[in-house]
């Protein structure tokens, strides 16, 4: 892990990985969405509205997975002071927030035809909305901490760990409390989803995840480059002062 503590080594690896991740991800996602729109069959009760599944479920997975990654990065920041941890958490927050919002929006559009309502305050929907708000708070907090300079990354890291409590709540909300949202279709080793939906969904999830990974790498490179440029500017200003 600390092999990547050296930003130069990380940047070399990230530069090599970004392109392949991005293009494989885009290709896989497009293929899966095309299957979802034109190939997959209509569902027995929901008809064609089931096709939004191929965006909704990957978005939910990445919204929750994003925060799990932030929590792991926060742990690495707090305990091991890993120099890239805070940068990784900041890089993840924006795409994570985007996918949480995408999950809420597609869910709402799906809920209208399937349930007969755009929104209800049941456990699953409410905890997912809370996740989106947590992302917004994390972005604001991390930006503010970054402006404060060195040593300011501890507060967002604590927030990242505390917010992780919401992740199991989202997952178990449909099991602990009766809710309008149905229980999970795919559990370990078992699927209530016909293969025609399942494999397309799997491909879409992997595709979106690869894009997510590429975006996070790009954002980490941007943050590192910004920090470098800022340091250089500061050094030059100091030199100008000395002259």
């Amino acid at each position, binding site marked *: 892990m600390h092999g990547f503590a050296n930003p130069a080594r990380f940047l070399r690896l990230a530069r090599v990985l970004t392109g392949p991740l991005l293009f494989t991800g885009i290709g896989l996602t497009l293929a899966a969405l095309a299957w979802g729109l034109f190939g997959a*069959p*209509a*569902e*027995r*009760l*929901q*008809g064609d509205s*089931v096709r939004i*599944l191929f965006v909704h479920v990957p978005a939910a997975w990445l919204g929750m997975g994003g925060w799990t990654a932030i929590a792991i990065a926060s*742990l690495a920041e*707090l*305990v*091991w002071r890993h120099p890239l941890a805070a940068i990784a958490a900041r890089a993840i927050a924006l795409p994570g927030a985007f996918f949480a919002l995408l999950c809420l929006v597609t869910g709402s559009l799906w809920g209208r*035809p*399937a*349930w*007969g*309502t755009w929104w*209800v*305050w*049941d*456990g699953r929907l409410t905890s997912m909305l809370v996740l989106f708000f947590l992302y917004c708070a994390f972005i604001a907090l991390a930006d503010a901490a970054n402006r404060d300079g060195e040593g300011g990354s501890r507060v967002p890291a604590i927030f990242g*760990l*505390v917010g992780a*409590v919401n992740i*199991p*709540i989202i997952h*178990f909300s449909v099991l*602990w*409390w*009766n*809710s*309008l949202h*149905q*229980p*999970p*279709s795919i559990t370990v080793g078992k699927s*209530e*989803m*016909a293969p*025609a*939906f399942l494999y397309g969904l799997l491909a879409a999830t992997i595709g979106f995840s690869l894009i997510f990974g590429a975006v996070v790498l790009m954002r980490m490179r941007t943050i590192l480059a910004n920090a470098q440029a800022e340091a250089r500017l500061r050094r030059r200003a100091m030199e100008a002062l000395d002259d």
Partner: protein
Amino acid sequence: MSGAIKAKHQRLVLVVIALVALIGAGLLAAWSLRSQASFFYLPSEMVANPPEPDRPVRLGGMVEAGSLKTDADGVTIRFVLWDDKGRVPVEFKGIVPDLFQEGSGAVAEGKRRADGTFVADNLLAKHDEKYVPREMKNMTADQARQVVEQTK
């Protein structure tokens, strides 16, 4: 060097203790919300522990096969919502969602009348976790029973 390792371990222990406390607090909160955070009453709960009449509540269960009837006025429907331990008659006037049908899950928003009938002013359809193409919709009786079990 040993000092640095010690500090690292100290931080790890602190963070783990904080996390355990945090998760404990979260679980306790979720546990205490068990009844409050539920989205609806089950039919068995409504039979065993009826809410006072005219308090707005939600009732969720399976629409009993063969129970769906339309009144002479053409817009009022009557059906029975049930689970394995109770059944509650429901009355609703209005347009039902597409997915509302006998043998499926539904959530009715409304009030319990004193005579035990639930008067709904809004109906929501619930769909189960099964995704089945149209061609495969003729489920076996065994599968149908599973569906009923999973609405709880």
